[in-house]
């Protein structure tokens, strides 16, 4: 019977604490404190680096406290949409990829004025162009990354004869995969296909440009059909089936499930970080039309509903300083966006990555591709069309022309409805972009 009293006490205590309200609610005026939501540098060690190495000096310098919050794109979008609809917000600064900004540009404020204040540093004109979305400067270039290949050094001895790691073709990649499978008894290539993976980027930014010289226009061309047959019959049999649930390749590389993998540099990084001696990075393979690849640009933007615009602008200024940019490169392996910081190299494990990135960018047959900029919030549909096409043809084994026609129609519809222009390597003159052969 004593139990009743004890539990009663417990409940009363709970009630009391509840009634006394919550600590930590920041309602009173405090020193400037801004919220920076970012889809980049989210992993726990990277976020720790940002808070301790990047933001701490900034706070010491300016007195502005920064709350750095990692977010997925969907969460970022939802938050900004809610804030826009409510007409007030708490997000001061947004860090994201160009692809992210395509979707959230509608919620962003024009930062041309902030850019004008950064006269002492040089941004690539192309990067600034990418940051122009919906007629405004939606973001200021912040840092770069790319998707590339990484291999376990064990795999190198099976490299086909005559193949140059830095100038690999898709044929050679398949031959390499075959040799690896013969030697180990299981497929050893890796292309991420998990639900949150970047498979769609591989399809539209790497395979399509390399095999057809196009991303959208020649979506259902004969070259595309050939490409899909190649992906389905040649490449996929060399890809380890465990990639189906993998969002990042570094884990599979570290486990030894795969020995050669394609992925975003940030999603490969952990492998050389854990075991620097074991891995090597190199450019993505080339196809008949060249070496298709995407340079990823991350940017910084300010939402219309930002409560502390000036402080956010101050943080942008700080983050685009050459010395800050070098610090980020050396800490987490993202490359600088300002030319004053170019040429710096990261130490240790990240050096492996940097070498691969620069090899890819400087390849003689480089064929840079882009994520279309005019799709607005339907950027997600663009990626999904490519991912769905891959799954239907390569994994589910559906008829190639049928699938290409159905998916091509969706692609066409998407561009017609949004009026977006074709992304590189398709010529950007036509607006809206259209799929040939429909």
């Amino acid at each position: 019977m004593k139990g009743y009293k004890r539990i009663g006490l417990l409940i009363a205590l709970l009630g009391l604490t509840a009634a006394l309200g919550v600590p930590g609610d920041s309602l009173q005026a405090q020193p400037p404190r801004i919220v920076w939501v970012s889809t980049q540098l989210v992993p726990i060690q990277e976020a720790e680096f940002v808070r301790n190495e990047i933001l701490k000096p900034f706070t010491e310098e300016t007195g502005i406290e920064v709350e750095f919050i990692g977010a997925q794109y969907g969460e970022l979008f939802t938050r900004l949409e809610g804030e826009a609809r409510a007409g007030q917000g708490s997000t001061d600064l947004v860090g994201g990829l160009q692809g992210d900004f395509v979707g959230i540009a509608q919620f962003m404020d024009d930062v041309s004025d902030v850019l004008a204040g950064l006269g002492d540093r040089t941004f690539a004109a192309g990067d600034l162009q990418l940051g122009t979305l919906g007629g405004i400067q939606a973001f200021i270039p912040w840092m770069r990354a790319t998707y590339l290949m990484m291999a376990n050094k064990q795999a190198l001895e099976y490299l086909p004869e005559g193949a140059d790691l830095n100038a690999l073709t898709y044929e050679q990649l398949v031959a390499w995969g075959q040799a690896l499978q013969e030697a180990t008894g299981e497929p050893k290539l890796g292309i991420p296909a998990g639900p949150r993976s970047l498979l769609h980027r591989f399809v539209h930014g790497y395979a399509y440009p390399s095999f057809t010289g196009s991303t959208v226009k020649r979506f259902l061309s004969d070259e595309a059909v050939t490409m899909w047959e190649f992906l389905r019959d040649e490449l996929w049999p060399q890809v380890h089936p465990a990639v189906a649930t993998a969002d990042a390749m570094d884990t599979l590389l570290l486990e030894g499930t795969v020995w050669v993998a394609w992925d975003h540099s940030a999603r490969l990084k952990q492998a050389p970080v854990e075991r620097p001696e074991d891995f090597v990075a190199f450019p993505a393979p080339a196809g008949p039309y060249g070496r298709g690849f995407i340079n990823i640009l991350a940017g910084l933007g300010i939402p219309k509903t930002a409560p502390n615009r000036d402080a956010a602008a101050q943080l942008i200024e700080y983050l685009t300083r050459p010395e800050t940019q070098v610090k980020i490169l050396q800490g987490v392996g993202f490359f600088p966006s300002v030319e004053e910081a170019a040429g710096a190299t990261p130490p240790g494990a990240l050096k492996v990555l940097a070498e691969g990135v620069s090899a890819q960018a400087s390849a003689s047959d480089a064929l840079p591709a882009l994520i279309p900029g005019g799709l607005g919030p339907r950027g997600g549909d663009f990626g999904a069309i490519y991912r769905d096409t891959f799954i239907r043809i390569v994994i589910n084994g559906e008829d190639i022309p049928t699938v290409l026609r159905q998916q091509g129609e969706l692609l066409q519809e998407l561009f017609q409805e949004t009026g977006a222009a074709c992304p590189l390597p398709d010529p950007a003159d036509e607006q809206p972009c259209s799929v040939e052969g429909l």
Partner: protein
Amino acid sequence: MTSPSSRSASRPSPIPPYPGRRRLTPRERRHRFLLYMAVVTIASWVLLPIFLIAVLSFTPREEFFNWPKPLIPSRFSIETMAFFVKSYGVLQSTLNSVWVALLTIGITLAIAAPAGYALSRFVFRGREAFRLGILITRMFPTALLAVPLIVLYYRLGIYDSLLGVAFIHAAMALPFAVLITTSVFVGVSRELEEVAMTLGCSRLGAFARVTLPLALPGLAAAAMFTFVISWNEVFAATVLTTTNRTLPAQVLTNLQASPPFFRVAGGFFMTVPALLFIFLIRRYLIQMWGGTPSER
């Protein structure tokens, strides 16, 4: 109420010399053996996965990716766990989670208990409709309510507050809390309350002096169940806060993109309190579901 063996022993037997405990027949012994076999099998089936994640979260980094994965690591490493726990926001968000859960309990019980009391004590028009109605709220993926909720929260001025998170958690826990409190109150005899009323209490007084003290263990169980719901809730906590995050929100956004050893450590870190709460409420696990929705 008695076990089969003690029941046969308690029956008055005409034979005077009773030689202590009866020895089990071979058949009974076989049954008992089978029973314990089944129990051990099922218990290990439930516990093994939890044991594995515990092992994995204390496996040293250099062994984490080994093949085959060792069931017992060569040494016990708290390196990953320590980095996780010390990293920014984890302790604060743990504290936040506790606050949110406590607030949720307060709100939920304050609202669910009267409803549960009404359902347990009165027969009235619309009673069944109400029961089905509160269940319907659980048939819809909550994630889709994000934008309307954010707008609502800004209007109410509770965006990014722990109270705001608690409000939505309470809404999620409410249907279950109503079911549980209903059966808790059904379990407290109505006559006790009535006798108190004949002895001079008002209805409220009878509730406070008799029903409430007797319902407390059951209500405590409901509170703990609410705690678990709030503790594990990810989505609302993620989109409705920016700075005041709860642990799952913090863990979800930070860990989904993090290397697997951190994901495992985070997963285990979140699991421990849940185990603890279930342990605390184990005695009431049964009681709180005593009268289920269609009961009585």
